[in-house]
């Protein structure tokens, strides 16, 4: 049964990565072809698995592969779980991944490190597939760490650039802070439940469960911390914009479609835990709302096109967190938005990669302008992604994002109104900064540097982008059509919301959303489309613009509160080690040396002084004897 060979999904890319990384320069001629072929093969196999599971009555295959840690009474099994949620992610990873791998063949054509790139890329695919297919939190954690490693390797791909190396370190450290949360959650699970496999843990929650709310809240908050680190949510979001130092295919696959969505997967998978603990769910929702607005505000002030898209990712994942935090019934909307986001964000990133390629690897939007005539196909692809993300009627975002805004308002009470308004404001700001990026890049007068001749990229790069653009156009509608995906995900994340009473009627809400979006688009069009764009960033700007350019001072905060005290601590420890510890040891040695130098001076060589000391010694012995004798 080919279903039992699901472990190949993890083993094949890992093997390919090993071959590519170990084969060395002789694999340079065919390395990229192997690297790109692997995800395509995986996608075909995933489709087969998808249809075979669809046909089954119980839509789940939970298979233990081998006994991982057999240690007496404590044993951990390693296994895979193929259920609707993991299948959806698997298709996203392998499908979008294949297209991006093919794109990367062309994008990295002039780079001598192309084979190494594909090795790391395949390593990432292997780890990500392990993450979504594992049937226990411990197996998920292995995949979690693997994607963090792959992300570090890929962000720092241009390792001779100090900014890239620093960005890689920053990403890994921020991930690590989040991983503490996930480790603690796993430890709590081991303590209270004795196992981390999904079946065992979830048996303690939900109907007939015996886990207390405290335990659920503890696990929930720790999982949230882990998810924040991986998905770049507040307060661990500062690494995502800097991660744009990596090559564009990396930004598209890892930091848009897949790795950063691992946090959403984690929370969706842990739905029984979050359903039990209202406190943890509130935490998720608050994080989602804050990050959503943070990403929007920061995206408005960036001149680097990829950074705008990075903040856009931060913000859109904030939407997804908001959705998973809203509780049972809304998980499916988050996943649907995740899939749609995968399509249109990958389109946007790959198009920006094409623009970057054409503009001699420059990414400052102030040096772009008027590219729609020079690169028409890329313009159409970017345009498709743009319309999808702002929620233009009938494009993807319109179907998926509106459902999230609707669910936010439906939560009821003050929190529902606050969240809904935040989501609406986010939609408007999204429209604003995306239009700004669109206008500065493709419209207006060309502000190109000398010697730059932009043109559409070769077919190998253009085709995947166009496929993804088509997916962003129709994907949203197809996903929402007839509640198909919602129904499909029910065994994993619970039933969807019943169409009951809404706080605001969906039609009215859609109209309000469209008005807000139109205002955003109009605002950006007037500010950037009608006026000439300065070639260098203006200096005398408002407080909000300065704050937006400086990531709302998040980096400054991290530096002042975490980095400087940390550096102070390390320098204090170094000082203590040099002066204190080394001082004590060296001081002891010096004391001995000095003492012996002093003592040495008694060896004068004079016979008479030796005679004197002998005499003194014998007198001392005599006195002692007398004292003992007569006491």
């Amino acid at each position, binding site marked *: 049964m080919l279903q039992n060979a699901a472990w190949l999904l993890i083993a094949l890319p890992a093997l390919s990565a090993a071959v590519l990384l170990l084969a060395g320069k002789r694999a340079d001629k065919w390395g990229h072809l192997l690297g790109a072929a692997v995800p395509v093969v995986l996608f075909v196999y995933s489709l087969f698995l998808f249809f075979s599971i669809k046909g089954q009555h119980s839509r789940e295959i939970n298979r233990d592969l081998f006994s991982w840690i057999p240690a007496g009474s404590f044993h951990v099994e390693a296994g895979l779980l193929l259920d609707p949620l993991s299948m959806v992610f698997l298709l996203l990873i392998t499908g979008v991944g294949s297209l991006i791998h093919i794109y990367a063949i062309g994008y990295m054509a002039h780079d001598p490190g192309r084979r190494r790139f594909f090795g790391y890329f395949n390593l990432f695919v292997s780890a990500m597939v392990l993450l979504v297919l594992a049937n226990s939190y411990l197996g998920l954690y292995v995949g979690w760490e693997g994607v963090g490693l792959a992300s570090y390797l890929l962000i720092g791909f241009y390792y001779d650039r100090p900014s890239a190396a620093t960005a890689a370190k920053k990403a890994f450290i921020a991930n690590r802070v989040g991983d503490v949360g996930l480790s603690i959650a796993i430890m709590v699970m081991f303590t209270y439940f004795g196992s981390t496999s999904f079946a065992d843990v979830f048996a303690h929650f939900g109907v007939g469960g015996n886990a207390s709310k405290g335990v659920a809240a503890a696990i929930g908050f720790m999982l949230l911390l882990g998810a924040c680190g991986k998905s770049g949510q507040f307060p661990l979001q500062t690494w995502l914009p800097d991660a744009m130092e990596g090559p564009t295919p990396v930004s598209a696959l890892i930091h848009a479609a897949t790795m950063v969505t691992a946090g959403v997967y984690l929370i969706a998978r842990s739905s029984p835990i979050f359903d039990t603990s209202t406190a943890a769910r509130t935490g998720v929702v608050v994080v989602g709302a804050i990050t959503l607005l943070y990403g929007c505000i920061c995206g408005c002030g960036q001149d680097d096109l990829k950074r705008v898209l990075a903040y856009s990712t931060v913000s859109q994942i904030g939407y997804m967190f908001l959705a998973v935090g809203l509780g049972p019934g809304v998980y499916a909307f988050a996943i649907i938005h995740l899939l749609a986001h995968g399509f249109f964000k990958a389109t946007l990133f790959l198009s920006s990669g094409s623009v970057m390629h054409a503009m001699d690897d420059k990414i400052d939007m102030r040096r772009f302008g008027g590219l729609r005539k020079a690169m028409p196909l890329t313009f159409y692809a970017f345009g498709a992604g743009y319309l999808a993300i702002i929620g233009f009627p009938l494009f993807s975002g319109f179907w998926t994002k509106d459902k999230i805004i609707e669910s936010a308002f439906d939560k009821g009470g003050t929190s529902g109104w606050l969240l809904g308004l935040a989501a609406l404001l986010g939609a408007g700001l999204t429209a604003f900064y995306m239009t700004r990026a669109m206008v500065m890049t493709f419209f207006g007068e060309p502000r190109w540097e000398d010697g730059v001749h932009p043109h559409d990229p070769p077919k190998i790069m253009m085709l995947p982008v166009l496929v993804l653009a088509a997916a962003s156009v129709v994907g949203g509608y197809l996903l929402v059509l007839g509640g198909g995906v919602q129904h499909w995900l029910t065994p994993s994340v619970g039933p969807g919301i019943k169409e009951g009473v809404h706080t605001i009627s969906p039609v009215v809400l859609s109209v309000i959303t469209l008005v807000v979006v139109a205002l955003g688009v109009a605002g950006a069009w007037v500010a950037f489309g009608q006026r000439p764009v300065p070639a260098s960033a203006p200096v005398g700007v408002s407080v909000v613009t300065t704050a937006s350019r400086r990531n709302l001072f998040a980096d400054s905060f991290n530096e002042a509160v975490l980095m400087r005290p940390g550096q102070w601590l390390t320098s204090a420890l170094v000082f203590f080690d040099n002066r204190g510890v080394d001082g004590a040891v060296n001081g002891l040695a010096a004391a001995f040396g000095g003492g012996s130098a002093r003592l*040495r*001076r008694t*060896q*004068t*060589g*004079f*016979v*008479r002084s030796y*005679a*004197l000391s002998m*005499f003194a010694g014998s007198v001392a012995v005599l006195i002692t004897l007398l004292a003992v004798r007569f006491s």
Partner: protein
Amino acid sequence: MTPTYYLVLSAALFTIGAVGVLVRRNAIVVFMCVELMLNAVNLTLVTFSRINGSLDGQVIAFFVMVVAAAEVVVGLAIIMSIFRTRRSASVDDVNLLKY
């Protein structure tokens, strides 16, 4: 004539001999002071033998005299060979073992 006087005399002789060993620079004079110390001890031994009425002290005095004679032979031989190489009989000049 109490034996105490003899003890006092021999103590005085011993002290003079000890001070002489520590203070005088000529090797021969140092040796003479050493002999003085040994003879002072001999006097003490004989006095105590007289006080206790046994002959043990006098026997030990014989041993001391033999040892003193042997030591003088060896010591003078060493001083002679030092004098032949260094042309000096001062004990301060044999200071090669200093640090």
